[in-house]
């Protein structure tokens, strides 16, 4: 709760910062605002900059104000920052974004920003220009969407998606264009200088459906996956188809009405298919290239993820160069390479790729929406024509509904599970128009289309109308219609295995019935893929472990390991290693085994540490196949215990004051003072003083050990040893044996003791260890003291010692395997007793 409020406070501060920034930004922008942000800023500014440089040098300047030098990149960066801060502001309050979709809010923020710019400049100096949109903002969005596309779902519904994307889009474009033209002829919009072809062109650009707002709603409401993939897939492919269609109509417009004959129309249709399928094919080719490339990038893991982004972008540009559909190209590139890339690359790189794509895509999305708002503040584009605008809105909605219903009716005749009526309504209603439509409208050539501004303005209005209004109503609508929700199923092995069983059963049934159904195709593709595609595109070891069931097993185990460790750490130092109830994995056995096998030269503490640290790390550390059998963990752990111990130590050792001085590091900056830490140390010290005071009263002499503690090398040990037999161990012979053990194996002990000088500290400093520390007196010795404490400490409070037989002190003295086993045993015995003590101290 407190965390939340503090986070909120932080966000408020950010909002303030943003306000300041906007205020501060504007004069900056104003200063530079002769040029458009992207169009020609750079060349101009460099020109002015060089000229000014030449003239002003009279004496050696110490600092020069070189605004023009950095102007363009600086403005771009500032705008990116501003847009992202807008997103931050939008997300401040979740109750707000749950009513109005984020995209709508961003557009509104764009209005405000545009207003500020307008107020400062009295002209629209910044707007979204198509070149930037299509080359720098759109590709990563499409790549991200296609790369993160649920593959299996997409391909199993590919037919329906293609029907909607191709036929549906053509239908929308054609009908909207024709209907508008008919209304124009009928006289509904007064006199306009628009011919039928231009209307068709307008219809084409209006058919681009934008998924962002809808998908956000769908994800929030968890609509069923078929509906999700239909809308998502359709809108993704639809963008590509729209652009193709737009280009075809654009060519017709340039050709001019009279020259168009049957031949040209046929050519147009052919070009549509060539461009669309050619683009898709190119995408697949690039997907193959990427997959093959990732087979060999093992040695440059750092930039591995970058390859996919760059090659994806290249597939976009190549398609553009060949005048094929760029969007379709990058879409299919992402969808097809996904599986093989994920299998080939290291897990870390996959995560990196995913996140960087998300950053890029979300960033551009934000910018696009903000700029859609900013672009509105422009006097030139607002040519009002009520009839045209209202009819456009009416037609796009009506024809969308008609198209979706008709196509679904066709599809349902052949679907195993028909798309039901509520889903169809939502699909139709989800046809929001977005940035692609605007981008295309802005590309219109004013020479060919005299009413460009009217079209642009109308497009903007349609975008606002659909994104804001339909976006807001979408969620209540979905809830009101009671759209079938997705069943959120956890990953279970049973589910995975049975899915597989079901698949096999279904194909068998189809074979028995003697028909080639959907499962026939799936199965044959799978066979083909296993035989040839995987062989070509996957690394051999990735191929080996490319098993679904095993993958699920792997993931589940990793999750378990993480939970196990978290729970263990919460419970206290070493409790979780012996605690067998909360993990289904038999770590305990494995660890015990490891102890038994020895590594006698290794300090116990470091072993424990790896127990804590190693498990979550392995998934990332190991460069092996993603197999989770614990054996592999084990092998790994053998390599790494030391490393982990040190790592843990470094993290948790209290910093001494001298270390607290701020360090200047490029990568990170350590907080100099940790108030909690101070508090902790203080409390501990006070408690230990109190304890030693008590024990002094009881007649034991803690002073003895204090006097000894400065000697810390192992030569001191023999001195301590004679004392041992004399000491009384009231809590039984177990502990006696501990010390006997440590005595007998003093050579080994000497070995590990050196390491253990810092090892106990791990126990002391790790917050998880603190509860035990507090209950047992000897534990409270500072790190440098513990060594002597082992031999000489008198156990002032037997109860405490008895209660925690597995505390690091004991284990430290026990280097032979027997004693570990015993510590185990005693731990089990004492476990119930241990709990209340811990509880108390934690409170």
């Amino acid at each position: 709760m407190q965390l939340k409020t503090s986070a909120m406070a932080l966000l408020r501060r950010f909002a303030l910062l943003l306000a300041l920034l906007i205020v501060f930004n504007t004069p900056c922008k104003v200063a530079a605002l002769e040029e458009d942000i992207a169009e020609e800023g750079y060349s101009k500014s460099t020109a002015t900059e060089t000229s000014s440089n030449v003239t002003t040098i009279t004496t050696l300047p110490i600092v020069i104000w070189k605004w023009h030098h950095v102007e363009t990149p600086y403005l771009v960066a500032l705008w990116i920052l501003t847009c992202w801060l807008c997103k931050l502001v939008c997300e401040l309050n979740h109750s707000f974004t749950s009513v109005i979709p984020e995209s709508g809010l961003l557009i509104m923020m764009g209005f405000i920003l545009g207003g500020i710019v307008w107020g400062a400049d009295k002209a629209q100096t910044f707007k979204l220009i198509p070149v930037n949109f299509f080359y720098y903002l759109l590709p990563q969005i499409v790549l991200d969407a296609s790369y993160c596309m649920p593959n299996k779902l997409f391909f199993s519904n590919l037919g329906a998606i293609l029907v909607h994307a191709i036929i549906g889009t053509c239908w929308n474009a054609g009908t909207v264009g024709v209907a508008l033209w008919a209304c124009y002829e009928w006289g509904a919009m007064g006199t306009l200088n628009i011919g039928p072809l231009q209307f068709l062109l307008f219809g084409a650009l209006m058919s681009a459906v934008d998924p962002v707002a809808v998908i956000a709603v769908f994800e929030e409401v968890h609509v069923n996956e078929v509906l999700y993939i239909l809308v998502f897939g359709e809108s993704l492919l639809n963008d590509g188809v729209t652009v193709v269609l737009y280009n075809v109509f654009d060519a017709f417009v340039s050709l001019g009405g009279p020259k168009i004959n049957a031949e040209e129309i046929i050519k147009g249709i052919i070009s549509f298919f060539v461009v669309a399928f050619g683009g898709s094919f190119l995408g697949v080719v690039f997907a193959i290239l990427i997959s093959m490339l990732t087979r060999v990038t093992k040695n440059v893991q750092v930039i591995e993820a970058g390859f996919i982004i760059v090659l994806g972008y290249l597939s976009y540009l190549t398609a553009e160069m060949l005048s094929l559909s760029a969007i379709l190209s990058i879409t299919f590139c992402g969808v097809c390479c996904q599986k093989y890339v994920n299998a080939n690359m290291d897990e870390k790189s996959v995560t990196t790729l995913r996140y960087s794509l998300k950053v890029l895509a979300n960033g551009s999305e934000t910018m696009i929406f903000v700029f859609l708002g900013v672009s509105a503040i422009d006097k030139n584009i607002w040519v009002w024509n009520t009839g045209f605008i209202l009819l456009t809105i009416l037609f796009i909605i009506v024809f969308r509904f008609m198209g979706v219903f008709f196509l679904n009716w066709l599809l349902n005749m052949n679907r195993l599970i028909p798309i039901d009526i509520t889903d169809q309504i939502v699909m139709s209603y989800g046809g929001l128009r977005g940035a692609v439509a605007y981008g295309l409208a802005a590309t219109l050539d004013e020479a060919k289309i005299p009413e460009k501004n009217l079209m642009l303005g109308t497009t903007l209005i349609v975008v606002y109308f659909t994104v804001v209004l339909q976006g807001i109503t979408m969620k209540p609508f979905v809830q009101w219609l009671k759209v079938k929700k997705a069943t959120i199923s956890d990953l279970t092995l049973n589910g995975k295995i049975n899915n597989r069983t079901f698949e096999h059963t279904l194909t068998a049934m189809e074979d028995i019935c003697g028909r080639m159904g959907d499962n026939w195709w799936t199965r044959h593709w799978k066979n083909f893929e296993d035989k040839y595609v995987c062989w070509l595109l996957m690394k051999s070891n990735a191929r080996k472990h490319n098993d679904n069931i095993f993958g699920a097993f792997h993931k589940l185990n990793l999750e378990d390991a993480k939970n196990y460790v978290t729970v263990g750490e919460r419970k206290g130092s070493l409790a979780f290693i012996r605690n067998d109830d909360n993990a289904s994995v038999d770590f305990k056995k494995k660890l015990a085994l490891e102890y038994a096998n020895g590594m006698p030269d290794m300090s116990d503490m470091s072993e424990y540490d790896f127990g804590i640290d190693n498990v979550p790390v392995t998934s990332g550390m190991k460069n092996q196949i993603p197999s989770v059998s614990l054996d592999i963990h084990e092998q790994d752990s053998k390599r790494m215990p030391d490393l982990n111990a040190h790592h843990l130590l470094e993290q948790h050792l209290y910093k001494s004051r001298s270390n607290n001085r701020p360090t200047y590091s490029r990568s990170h900056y350590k907080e100099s003072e940790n108030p909690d830490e101070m508090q902790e140390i203080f409390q501990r010290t006070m408690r230990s003083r109190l304890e030693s005071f008590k024990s002094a009263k009881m007649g034991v002499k803690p002073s003895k050990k204090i006097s000894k503690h400065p000697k810390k090398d192992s030569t001191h040990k023999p001195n301590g040893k004679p004392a041992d037999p004399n000491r009384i161990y009231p809590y039984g012979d177990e502990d006696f044996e501990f010390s006997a053990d440590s005595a007998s194996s003093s050579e080994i002990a000497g070995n590990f003791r050196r390491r253990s000088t810092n090892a106990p500290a791990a126990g002391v400093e790790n917050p998880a260890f603190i509860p035990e520390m507090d209950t047992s007196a000897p534990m409270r010795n500072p790190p440098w003291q513990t060594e002597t404490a082992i031999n000489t400490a008198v156990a002032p409070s037997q109860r405490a010692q008895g209660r925690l037989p597995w505390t690091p002190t004991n284990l430290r003295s026990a280097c032979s395997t027997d004693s570990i086993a015993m510590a185990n045993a005693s731990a089990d015995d004492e476990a119930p007793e241990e709990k209340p003590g811990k509880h108390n101290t934690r409170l």
Partner: protein
Amino acid sequence: MGSRASSLLREEDIEEIKKETGFSHSQITRLYSRFHSLDKGENGALSREDFQRIPELAINPLGDRIINAFFPEGEDQVNFRGFMRTLAHFRPVEDNEKNKVLTPGEPLNSRTNKLLFAFRLYDLDRDDKISRDELLQVLRMMVGVNISDEQLGSIADRTIQEADTNGDMCISFNEFTKVLEKVDVEQKMSIRFLH
């Protein structure tokens, strides 16, 4: 061939099968012709060998299990009625069926029956429990050779652990239903029969 086969089928048989399985008339005649073409012995019943002759089943990892599912316990012949009864498990659940009751009791394509079919694929000894060994056998059939026996063993352990609620280290049918609660069995265990 098809017409001859359908002529062998009496109308009243069709009516009864229709009632029992919910298939349409044309589906039944279509499937009958398939049945007939599988029936190499021409004796109006299929034997295991008849099924095994289907080439695709030979490469289906669960092929033999599925063939077995067609045969009632102890028998090695299945007539058209039984054949249809098994296939009926895979008929998709249609919306209008939810309202009208065709047969008393649960229709063959209900969720429970679909699950029961899958369950029987594992349960070799028909003791209504999937033991670890039974599960291992099926897993071994379905996964490649890349996975070692130990790994497979731990997968099986884990799978049982996931489903097992009463701690007997077996999966009973109730547990099986429970663990697949969220899986859209109706959809995943249905195929499209031509009308």
